[in-house]
């Protein structure tokens, strides 16, 4: 009961920033939107290549990538906020609370998951505006839930980096982490069209399975075969990154 109240309080505080500084949410929304529209404008013609059979809208193909990028930016922003809290002493205040470290982490990460729904909503609306067909409610629910899991993962990564370097200057490292995770997948083209090295990386990258899960409905339909690996990969990644994030928090001050 007490733990739930603490998590709620920390989430409320984190969401405060967006409510009271509306511009704070803009970069996390603008960047993936620009990327999605830009990629479509630049590479849109590739759908005429044989490997893209059945896919006639490049924007529908890359919109899910934009959703994951939005989650990535949100997670990185969470890490930067934590680094700022560490620099300014606020983090000490949190550590002084008689609350376990995992609960503190849940509070930090839960806010990222919720925040990620903002760029998700904007990107889907922009996509629909530019002609992407409505993917269906089930696909949207699956996509949104997977995005929240990915945002939690990138928030854990941001936490790990923030606790290690204790400075906002580590922001690029947070961003590169999510950048690599999202783009080293079948982001730009179906996996069969990728160069061998990228195909191998994408096959090993858990985020690629999440991307496939998020893509359902925008490209093709929702299938169990694409859904369960997405959740398994997402939660598996969360477990691993969460472990290291908690470990980082426990080691603070040692």
């Amino acid at each position, binding site marked *: 009961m007490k733990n739930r109240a603490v998590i709620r309080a920390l989430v409320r505080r984190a969401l405060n920033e967006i409510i009271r500084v509306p511009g704070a949410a803009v*970069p996390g929304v603008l960047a993936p939107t620009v990327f999605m529209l830009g990629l*479509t404008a630049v*590479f849109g013609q590739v759908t005429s290549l044989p490997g893209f059979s059945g896919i006639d809208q490049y924007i529908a193909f890359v919109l899910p990538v934009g959703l994951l990028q939005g989650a990535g930016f949100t997670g990185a922003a969470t890490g930067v906020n934590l680094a700022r809290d560490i620099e300014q002493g606020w983090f000490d205040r949190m550590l002084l609370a008689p609350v376990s470290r995992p609960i503190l982490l849940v509070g930090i990460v839960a806010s990222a998951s919720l925040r990620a729904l903002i760029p998700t909503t904007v990107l889907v609306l922009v996509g629909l505006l530019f002609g992407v067909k409505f993917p269906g409610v089930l696909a949207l629910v699956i996509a949104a839930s997977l995005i929240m899991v990915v945002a939690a993962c990138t928030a854990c990564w941001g936490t790990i980096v923030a606790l290690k370097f204790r400075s906002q200057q580590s922001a690029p490292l947070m961003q590169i982490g999510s950048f*690599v995770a999202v*783009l*080293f997948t079948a982001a730009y083209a179906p996996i069969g069209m990728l*160069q061998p090295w990228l195909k191998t990386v994408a096959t090993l990258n858990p985020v690629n399975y999440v991307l496939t899960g998020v893509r359902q409905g925008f490209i093709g339909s929702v299938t169990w075969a694409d859904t369960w690996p997405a959740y398994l990969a997402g939660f598996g990644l969360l477990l691993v990154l969460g472990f290291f994030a908690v470990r980082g928090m426990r080691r603070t001050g040692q």
Partner: protein
Amino acid sequence: MIHASLALARRALRVTARRPQFIAPLLVFPSLLLAVNSGGLSQARNLPGFPPVQSFFDFQLAAAMSQSLLLGGVATGIAVALEIELGFFDRLVTAPIPRLSIVMGRLLAAAAIALFQLSWFVLLGLIFGNGISDGIPGLLIVYGIGSIAGIGFAGIGLTLALRAGNASSVQAIFPLVFVVLFLSSAFFPENLLSWPANIIAQYNPLSYIANGMRAPIIGYGGAEAVLEGFGAALGMAVLFAGLATHALHRRLRAG
């Protein structure tokens, strides 16, 4: 004036070298994008109308260079904005040096950093691509257009910094960097861009800069592309160096 400009340029380079976290994003992000673009869309060179290239990587190299140089311009702006915020800029202004050397020094440093950035991508091209098709003369063309463009982009950053006076305002234009890149022929041939990107690209100086650097790399495009590249780069350098100078005078007048 030259002496002061060189001294300030050397200082800017020294400070940049001591902050690797400053320069890393200029190389790392474009390199990652280069890897992903070329790894993901290599078959795009089979599209009708695509220039003859040995590999898609070679085509993308100029895009990565352009992106890196643009980011370098923003980074210069952020560095100067931080100096204004922290008061170091005032120290320069009160020194017995020609005021113009404050701008010239930064632009000279930007040119030197641009050479470093370009060298990185040339190296990547040698390792992962087919190098510079036109050999040493081609390399000199790449360095020439790139370093002059680097001056121009630094001029943009400087202008913003001198007008805004704070780093977060300069940082806010990062998304615009990608807008400019996407609305050019940096990543893809102009004739294969979707509307309205294909129209805007015709008027975007970055298209000519990227095409100019690309021509000697892929051995296609010829003298016309190179001359247009030099022209666009010089035009940008002159325009934004001028705007930066004007912004400096405005700031000094305002006090």
